[in-house]
Structures are given as C-alpha cells and as structure tokens.
C-alpha cells in the first residue's frame, strides 16, 4: 500500500458513493423471521389493530433498516458476489488489509419503514485513520455513513459504522 493509494481513498471522504435501490420491497414475512430470531413479541408487529392505531398500518422494526438493502445470496444473472457496505470492502482491498471488524455502529431512525417500501441507500466515507496497532493486529480505523431513504425520498435512517481493517499477527496486546 503506497501513500498515493491512501491519499486516493481519503480523497473520497465526503462523497456520496454507491447509490443503490433495494432488490426487494419491505415485506412482512421477513419482519416475522427477524422477530422470531429474537423472540420479540411486540404487539405493534403482530397485532394489526395496534399497528393501525399507533402507526397507521404495519411498520418494520427500526433495527431492521439495514436488512432491506442486503442482497439475497444469489440472483439470476448475477456474476459477482454482491457485497453490502461496498466502501468498507473497497478500503480493505485498496489498503491491503485482509481482515476487518466493525467496532461501533450508530443508527438514527427517522421516517418509519412500511410494508412495500423500496429503500434507497448511499454510502459516505467520513474518515480514515493513521495506522494503529490493537490486540487484533495493525491497520486503520474508518468511519462510513449509510444513508437510507424511501421511494418518496423521505429520510429513513442514517447508520454510521466504525470499521477496523487489519493484518493479523502484527500487533501486540493492547
């Protein structure tokens, strides 16, 4: 990895990248799959009369917002593996950091997500740190915003990830 590559990645800070439209509309069956995975019995999602009164109809649990733009594992005609959070994978590849973890994740929830919505997203790189060594290895931290909107352009959520891309075995316990 050269200084020029790092400069090239840092030049993308603040730019909107990877405008994407969700492959599938928001659907109730997947909401129930999520609720079942954590045994969430919130009547807002199970009792139509509660949803009608509180949210004017069915909404999706806020914490599911990132699910709606994650691709299915396969789709007809797809030749490359689809990767969510592409900016993260771009950084790993460009900076030659084979491993990565997410250390922090903040989500701010705006307009509720409704059944049938097709969400749009884009990603914005916010920062790339200088080299750091942690107990995992030596690498760099980066911060990426994922902005979610619905088909009407209403802001749905902003998710801010902090990632750490690194090489194993080069660090000391920290």
């Amino acid at each position, binding site marked *: 990895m050269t200084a020029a590559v790092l400069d090239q990645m840092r030049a993308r800070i603040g730019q909107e990248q990877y405008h994407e439209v969700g492959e599938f509309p928001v659907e109730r069956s997947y909401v129930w*799959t999520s609720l079942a995975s954590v045994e969430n019995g919130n009547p807002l999602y199970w009792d139509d009369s509660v949803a009608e009164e509180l949210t004017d109809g069915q909404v999706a649990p806020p914490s599911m917002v990132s699910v709606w733009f994650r691709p299915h594992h396969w789709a007809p005609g797809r030749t490359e593996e689809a990767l969510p959070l592409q900016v993260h994978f771009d950084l790993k590849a460009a900076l030659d950091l084979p491993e990565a973890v997410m250390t922090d994740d903040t989500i701010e929830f705006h307009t509720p997500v409704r059944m049938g919505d097709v969400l749009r997203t884009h990603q914005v790189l916010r920062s790339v740190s200088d080299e750091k060594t942690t107990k995992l290895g030596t690498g760099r931290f980066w911060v990426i915003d994922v902005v979610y909107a619905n088909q009407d352009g209403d802001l749905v959520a902003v998710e801010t990830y902090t990632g750490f891309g690194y090489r194993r075995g080069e660090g000391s316990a920290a």
Partner: protein
Amino acid sequence: VTSTAVEPQLLLDDVTVGESLPALNYKVTATTVVLGALATRDWRPMHHDKDFAVERNGTQDIFLNTPNQAAWFERYLTDWTGPHGRLARVTFRMKGSVFPGDTMVFTGVVESTTVDDVGCGFVTVAVTLAVDGDVKTTCAARVALPRRADDNPWGRRGDQWRPSPPP
C-alpha cells in the same frame, strides 16, 4: 400527536433516572446464531461455518452478527417500553463475540429523561449484553416514550420528530 386507545405500557413520568430495567437471560445455540444471520440476510461464513470462523477469524466458534444483536437490543428495550416506545437512536460498541453455549444477559440502566423543544419525551438507557460477567456489547439507546395516555411518539413526523439529542 395522534390520540390512541391502546393503553401505553410505560409513560415518561413512570421512569426514574438510575432505575434498572428487568434483566433478560437467553441461552445461545448454533441455531440462534444461524437464524439471526439469515434473518438479517448476512451470508458471511463466520456466522454459519464453524471451520471458517475458527481458521479465518481466529474465534472459538461461529458468533452472533451485529445486525441481529441490534434486533436483540430492540426487543429488550421494547419489552420494557411496550409498543408506544419508539427508537430514536442507538449506538452499539462491540467488545467481544457471543458464541453458541453462552448465556446472554441483557441489563439496562436509565441515564436520563428529557422533553425536547417540540414536546416529545425521551429516555436514554445504557444497555449491556454480558456473558459470564464479561461485557460483549454495549448499547446507548435514546427512546421516545409517551408523556400521557393519549400521547403517541409514532405519530410525530417532519420537524416534530427529532431523533438526535440536542447538541
């Protein structure tokens, strides 16, 4: 803000700073991890393939993914608030992994109660997911609660809904 006939489970005035939320214990199995990965369309192998998790990630087993942990934290918070509770903002910090065989223990402490400039009530809660006393993930949550029986945070739109805390 829309009036409602569904009785709120918890009002802002019912909440005291420093109070603890009821704890939630849950024994994690491989099924929990795989179900959580599939429910969040996370196909990365460290959440379903033990050999990959051990050899590539250097972990002892497959582990819960972050989006599914978010769903666990939401469930923990709304078990307490009831359906009127509306998540505004959550910040997760991942400190360690949760593996099959672990018993997750969720606990929470109310850190503040506020009413914003447009009259919406909020609590902030510090939630911890621990295993055998080791903190695995923390979640700082800001959740809107009704202030009266006829108040409904979900009815707020546009500039009446301000999920960020004031600077």
